[in-house]
């Protein structure tokens, strides 16, 4: 069964550094999402992406963040100048166009630790 994959599973970085989190969505999916979960808190929506542009973003998704689909298979989240409070589990999700369920399929997550 096809699945969303994410790399790396765990990323440790120093405050102020840039990180890129990578996701490979399911191949025929057209909508892509990033969510994050700070330890002990709710899963929070960051951004959705369709047709090579951001379709919706939350107040969390400020100029520090950017997303890209560089090659038609990967979907990346870049965090410039990381802060301690960016430490969280980051989940990528994708879904096909239309369909009955509009289900979002989630990857296993990347745990980002900023020191």
């Amino acid at each position: 069964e096809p699945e969303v994959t994410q790399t790396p599973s765990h990323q440790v970085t120093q405050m102020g550094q840039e990180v890129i989190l990578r996701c490979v969505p399911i191949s025929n999916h057209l909508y892509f999402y990033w969510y994050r979960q700070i330890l002990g808190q709710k899963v929070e929506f960051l951004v959705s992406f369709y047709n090579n542009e951001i379709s919706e973003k939350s107040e969390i998704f400020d100029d520090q963040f950017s997303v890209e689909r560089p090659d038609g298979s990967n979907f990346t989240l870049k965090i410039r100048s990381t802060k301690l409070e960016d430490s969280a589990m980051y989940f990528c999700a994708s879904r096909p166009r239309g369909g009955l369920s509009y289900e979002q399929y989630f990857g296993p997550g990347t745990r980002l630790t900023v020191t």
Partner: protein
Amino acid sequence: AQSVTQLDSQVPVFEEAPVELRCNYSSSVSVYLFWYVQYPNQGLQLLLKYLSGSTLVESINGFEAEFNKSQTSFHLRKPSVHISDTAEYFCAVSSSRGSRLTFGEGTQLTVNP
């Protein structure tokens, strides 16, 4: 704005006992409701959903949830749990099909022998 509250952060039960995981939501518009499950070291998997129609929805592994509009609830139930049901369960709401999901805090279900 919409929000989701899961009233129980941890629910320990014995195997073969019934369980109910509670979820309440608030929204000013029509909602679509979801339960996701997360097993250790895995991503979130859709367990069941309410989009429209029958207010009682079921999953393939024996869970069910009922959409109650008057009580703004979408509680998850299973009449007899297994050890393998041990996981974290997340309730989520969306205001339109395919748009952002707003999640609750999650409920850790632990099934003991």
